[in-house]
């Protein structure tokens, strides 16, 4: 999985490729680096994720709880179809904040 970041508070963390149990540790490390850099308002761009599993969902839910506790912004941005399906099945599409950008929605 490739991870790139852009912007500042909110910082957009863009993921590309498979986001699964094998990538959770890498994702967690990257997020820690971002937070250590003072970027505490986060948007996770899921538009290029082509596979997601329950471990990745757990990572996102965990991050969402941290943000809620610290009253920081946390949003999922433009989830791809495979991700959107999983979010809907698990009900996380209602529990997590999801933003659809105008470009993505069009």
């Amino acid at each position, binding site marked *: 999985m490739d991870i790139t970041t852009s912007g500042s508070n909110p910082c957009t963390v863009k993921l590309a490729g498979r986001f699964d149990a094998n990538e959770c540790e890498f994702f967690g490390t990257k997020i820690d680096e971002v937070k250590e850099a003072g970027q505490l308002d986060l948007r996770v761009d899921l538009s290029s994720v082509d596979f997601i599993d329950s471990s990745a969902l757990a990572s996102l839910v965990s991050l969402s709880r941290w943000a809620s506790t610290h009253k920081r912004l946390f949003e999922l941005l433009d989830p791809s179809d495979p991700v959107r399906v999983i979010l809907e099945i*698990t009900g996380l599409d209602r529990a997590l904040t999801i933003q659809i950008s105008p470009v993505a929605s069009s």
Partner: protein
Amino acid sequence: MTDSASSLVDETEAAVLRRQLGELTDAFVEANEQLLALYQLTEVSTASLDPTVAARRTVEGVHAIVGAEWSSFVRRTAENVVETAVAVGTEPERSDLVRSEDLLGGEAFVEHSEHSDRSVISTPVKADGNHFGSLVVYSDAGRRFTTAHLKLVNAVSNQLAMSLELAAAHDSEVRRTVMERDHDTASALAQAAMNRPIPDVPSLDLAAFNRPARAAGGDFYAVARCGAGLYLALGDVSGKGLPAALLMSSAISAAYSAFDRTPNGDAGAALTEIDRQLSSFLMETGKFITMAVAYVEPDSETLYLSNAGQSPVLLVGDDGVQAVPPDSPPIGVLEPQDHTTQAWHLGAGELLFIGSDGWADQLDRNGNPLSDQKVEALLRAKQDNTAMDLTATLIAAVDEFASGTPQVDDLTALVIRREPKEPDPVTWKLEIAAELAALREIGPWADAAMREALTRDTDQLSSNVELALQEICVNIIQHAYAKVPGDHVIQLECVLDEETYTFITTDDGHPYDESKRREVDVENPTVGGYGLFLAEAFCEELRYERVDEKNHWHLAFRRSAHVQQ
């Protein structure tokens, strides 16, 4: 004429008139009684079916009509003894009687004996060649019967003959009805002997059918499990009715006994045993039995047959219909004999039909038989049907052909069909290290397995399979192998059949503990617990089992109809 003389004449005339009036009255009364007797006689033939009662009423009637001294019905018994079956009135002196033998000569006569001064009339009671006896009437002493009396008594004799004939016919009918009932009972008992449950043997599809004709025929069958295979026998006892039904029961018992005594599946030996049990009795009674015995096993395409004059015995396959000829005469025709076994091929999808001749012999309204050719054509056309459906089709075809014509003979059939082989399931296997990094191997492997099966399944199904499998494997890595030192592997297997893909994972980690499973509440998301939830969401069935210290997860995915081959 003086007054006194005139008075005497008047008195004399009056006496004559009174006498004449008395005589007329007596005559009238007698005539009335005779009329009444005649009237009663006319009722005798229909009022009683008991020959003794009929004879008594007739004798009483004729006695009254002719004003006899003694009237009787004389007959010859089965032991050829002349007896007076019924008598009315006062028997004359023995010396006045006509010899009994003369009374039963078969001719009517009237005689007057000067010795006793009385007449006797004897008339034969006979109808349609049956001589039941004679009606014998003696007059009072001093009275003479005339030919007019003879004619009258003769007419009454004919009336009695009709009554006795009717009673005999009724008796015969009663006997016939009782016999028919006995036949039906015997047939029902034989049917009951046949109605054993049909054994269920894998890959062998069997149907048995018997519908007896009205006159209790002798068709029978027997089916029994023997080792891994099945013994089948179908036969036909010559003749109909009670003897055939009784022999049929014996033949069924003999067949089952023979199956038990020849457990090696040797059809010829079984038929030899049946022959040994039945032939002496058959030869004594002049009966015989046609019979075929077959033995078939589920895992062998060889069919063993022994045929003692049974027809039709047909093998139906893709190459057409082949008749299995008899290899010995029917049982009971010769002394007990050793029957041989023929080996035939009965491949997958092929069937054996053993039937009775009732199928081909069934007549239509014009008296034309269905014929062997039409039976064979029906079997060939319905070869792919199940044995039960094929039999039902055959029955319907025969009934339609008969179109109300009574069933000519018993309809009996055994149909055994070797079920077509299911294609062997296609299996793919993969073994991965129990590490998260190895999860990447699952998707391409599952996708390749499904594509190799040329099923053109959609990418969506492929990704569903990958996700569900990955969730299970993550669980295995993180829970089953948690804190278990050493390197471990997960084995994956994909089995493809007509309707489903089944993926099976195998590991030797800790057993799965359902009680520790966290339920997903979509309204209150948690950090974990989504793994099994997603696996269940994406597969048709998710099942866990622990066998031989190993965990097995079965994930079944239904192949959508449009992608099935």
